[in-house]
Structure formats: structure tokens, C-alpha cells
């Protein structure tokens, strides 16, 4: 039978023909590498707390340190290899956010520092900030509305 008879048929046929990602292996790698990155964060957090910082400040310090490490690894051309191995294991933690800002900054340097580095830095991470900040503000507004009726969400 000719698989190109209709678009639906062809899509089905192509899905069957195309190899799937090695999902078991990818999940395993994502699990242990993601868990490891979080654990490193926890250790940094514990050290901060031991040194007398409060919960919020410790969390910020953890973010900054992990972002710095990811930025350095990206700059050393290592993060893409890590990312290829870890998949979501390095993408989902804050390291992936840092990598998604540093990598276009490096790539678009050839278009100049203002419109290249400055302008293109957020090509991948920009949506994260847009949707993160917007949804947080919506959450805050809803909270305000409910809070005036003395119904608290948190």
C-alpha cells in the first residue's frame, strides 16, 4: 500500500518508521544527574545555613553559585556535552536556565555586544522570565482578591 495516500496515513507511517529516543536510558540519566545537581544545591544550602544565613538568603546563594558553575562550564564549551548526556537532568535545574542565557550570549557575540550579546541573550530564556513573572503576578493578584475576603491561599 502507498503510505503517501493521505497526510494522516503518511504521518502515521513516518511515526512508525522513525526510531524513538532511547527513553529508558535518557530517563535514568536525567534522574541521577538531576538528583545530583539538586543534592549539590542542598549541600551548598546546608553550608550557608550553618554559617548563619536564613532560608531565603541561602536559597539565593545556591542559585547564584549553580548559575555561576553552569556559566563557567558553558564558557569552557563543556556544558553542551553535559547537556547531551543528562538531557532534562541538566536542563530542568537552574543550570539549564543559566546555560540558556549564556549560550546565545556567546553565539551572537559576532553581531556585536549591544544587539548581539545584549539583544539575543534572552532568545531561549526570555520566555521563561515572561511566563514566570506574568504567572506569578497573576497568582499575586488572585491572592489579593481572595485575601480581602479573608480567604487565604497560603
Amino acid at each position, binding site marked *: 500500500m502507498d503510505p503517501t495516500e493521505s497526510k494522516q496515513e503518511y504521518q502515521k507511517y513516518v511515526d512508525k518508521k522513525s526510531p524513538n529516543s532511547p527513553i529508558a536510558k535518557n530517563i535514568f540519566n536525567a534522574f541521577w544527574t*538531576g538528583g545530583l545537581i539538586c543534592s549539590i544545591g542542598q549541600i551548598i544550602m546546608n553550608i550557608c545555613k550553618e554559617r548563619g544565613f536564613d532560608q531565603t538568603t541561602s536559597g539565593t546563594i545556591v542559585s547564584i553559585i549553580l548559575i555561576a558553575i553552569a*556559566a563557567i562550564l558553558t564558557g569552557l564549551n563543556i556544558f553542551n556535552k553535559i547537556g547531551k548526556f543528562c538531557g532534562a*537532568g541538566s536542563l530542568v535545574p537552574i543550570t539549564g536556565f543559566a546555560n540558556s542565557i549564556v549560550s546565545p550570549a556567546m553565539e551572537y*557575540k559576532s553581531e556585536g555586544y549591544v544587539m548581539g550579546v545584549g539583544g539575543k541573550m534572552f532568545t531561549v530564556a526570555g520566555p521563561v*522570565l515572561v511566563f514566570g513573572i506574568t504567572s506569578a503576578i497573576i497568582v499575586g493578584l488572585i491572592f489579593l482578591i481572595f485575601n480581602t475576603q479573608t480567604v487565604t491561599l497560603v
Partner: protein
Amino acid sequence: MNLDWSNVFDWMQLLKCFAVGGAICVIGQILIDKTKLTPARILVIFVTTGAILGGLGIYKYVVDFAGAGATVPLTGFGYNLAKGTIEGAQQNGLIGVFTGGVKAAAGGIAAAVFFGYIASLIAKPKIKKQ
């Protein structure tokens, strides 16, 4: 450094952190492999989910249970933003809604911008030699 290392290496806490952090990443991996979503879309899904779960007060329990296992993934970033706006709302009302979120996440955003700029000054992209 004069640290109590048994508090730093609290194995039970680290195990919970490892398991939850790993599990959140596994959700991301399933999205990558099964839905063909681009990395930007996956990050957006996580940050938005984190903000919503934070607003509903659910994510707080995950954070209490897993610590950095819940705050280091991008859902934690979204949670942090939502927590910031709610705290801002409590303190300053409507203005707080607009200032609280970014204030809470300021360290991470500023660090990423700064290190991104520095890296672009020093480093150059190279081909993936795999």
C-alpha cells in the same frame, strides 16, 4: 571553616532531595522524548507550573520535604516568584504584587545576565566534538 558537617551531610535530607529533584527532571525528560517540545517550551512549562503550584500552596510542601530538590529545578524558580508576589501583596498590597516576585528571584536573574555577559566577553562557541 567551623561547620557541623553532620548537618551539612544530612544523608536522609540529601536522599529526599536527590529523589525529588531527580523525579522532577524525569518529568522533563519524558516531555522532551515524547512531545518534541523545544527546551524553551519545557522551561516555560516548568516555571509556570511552579508558579501555579506555589500560588495554590501545594509546592510549599514539596519544598519542605525535599529542600533544594524542589527549589533548584525551574519549578522552584516559579515557586519563588509566586511566593515573592504573595509576600509582596501581604506587605505592600498591589505594588507588592509587582515588585515582590522579581525581588525574590533577583539574585538568580542578575547572576545569569552578568555571567552570560562575562562569558561572551571571554569565551567563544566551539563545535560539538562528539
